[in-house]
């Protein structure tokens, strides 16, 4: 079975939200540089999809594409997905312990107690509200890029959630060259959902496609912080080629295995 193609979509979320466009803020990679993909690491990737066919013309290999979005400058995807919830719980647990200690202390000077309470309040962070479309982020504390809970959201130190691809469409899909769909996966790196597509390699040529990507912005609305979704689009291309298969030993059709007659007789 041939190698599966992985296309990485690395988004500079901070700058994309500031300029409200993915142009110039998205970097695309795939693992097909060896087979001819061009412009790796920039915004105009052309992914090489090399198909092959048997001598009777039938498609010999199936090419599978997988898309992986990442946020530049956020907590890396190798950190376990339950991390945010775990850090939130840890911060809560610590805060409770400190509050208990504070309550059990003999009558403290009022200024000291207030200072201690403020410190605990900061370490607990602030829970963020969400809209119906960003339910996955509900109830979680916001973390900064080193994994610590963020107290003051106005500082802009928070780590952005991973961008989500919500749709893949365009010429390649319309021409029935590519068949994308969203799949469930137990793989923690992809957070349970990822986009994958099979390619009909019997149609050589270059085809463009567009991804709709959802970013999240932390905004203050009426005294509460919420994650609001921001939808942007990003284009890329596939370059499909097709070549005939041939026998590895003879470079033509099948023959005897190349064992010398009488070698061991």
């Amino acid at each position, binding site marked *: *079975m*041939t*190698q*599966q193609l*992985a296309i990485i979509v690395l988004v500079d979320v901070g700058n994309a939200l500031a300029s409200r466009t993915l142009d110039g803020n998205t970097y695309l990679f795939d*693992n097909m540089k*060896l*087979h001819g993909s061009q412009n790796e690491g920039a915004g105009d990737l052309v992914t090489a999809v*090399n198909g*092959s066919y048997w001598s009777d013309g039938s498609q010999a*290999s199936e090419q599978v594409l*997988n898309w992986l979005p990442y946020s530049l400058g956020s907590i890396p995807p190798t950190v376990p997905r339950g991390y945010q919830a775990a850090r939130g719980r840890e911060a809560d647990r610590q805060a409770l312990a400190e509050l208990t200690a504070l309550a059990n202390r003999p009558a403290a000077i009022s200024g000291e107690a207030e200072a201690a309470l403020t410190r605990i309040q900061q370490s607990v962070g602030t829970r963020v509200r969400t809209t119906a479309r960003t339910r996955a982020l509900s109830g979680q504390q916001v973390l900064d890029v080193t994994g610590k809970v963020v107290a003051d959201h106005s500082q802009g130190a928070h780590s952005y959630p991973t961008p989500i691809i919500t749709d893949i469409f365009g010429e390649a899909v319309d021409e029935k060259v590519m068949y994308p769909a969203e799949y469930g996966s137990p793989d923690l790196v992809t957070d349970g959902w990822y986009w994958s597509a099979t390619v009909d390699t019997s149609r050589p040529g270059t085809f463009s496609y567009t991804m709709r990507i959802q970013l999240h912005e932390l905004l203050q609305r009426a005294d509460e912080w919420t994650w609001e979704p921001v939808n942007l689009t990003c284009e890329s291309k596939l370059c499909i080629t097709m*070549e*005939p*298969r*041939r*026998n*590895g*030993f*003879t*470079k033509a059709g*099948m*023959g*005897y*295995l*190349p*064992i*010398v*007659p*009488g*070698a*061991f*007789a």
Partner: protein
Amino acid sequence: MKPQVNIAVVVDVIGALSDKSLLNGNLCMMDDGTFDSTGQGTPELCTVVAPGQVVQWSALAVDLQTPVEIKSITFLGPGDGEDAGARGEDSGDGDHLDLNVWTGVVPPFMAPGVPHKYRLELQMYEGEHSVLRIDSPALMRL
């Protein structure tokens, strides 16, 4: 007797490139032949075949996003060196290894009961250290 015997060459590409070797569990070979092949799951697979059967080799990477292709399969002579006549044509163009289909028919003049070892060369991506080989797998005619 089945008309075709399939040999699967399963490689941990990152492990093999890190160790610069196909040993240490980085290579696992298996076949689905009906006779009693030995060394299943190791680089010392000895596949038992009969004349007229088709043998097919396929390479598969454990991590589907890493590349591995068979670069060559060369049958070794009785000495340790290669038998020049038994060498398959050199695939000069490393670029299109994925177009090769490694199949062949077991010839009727293959001597029975003797393991015929072959050198298996694998190409993982490109670069100075991208080709690794082993000489231990074999075919044996009943």
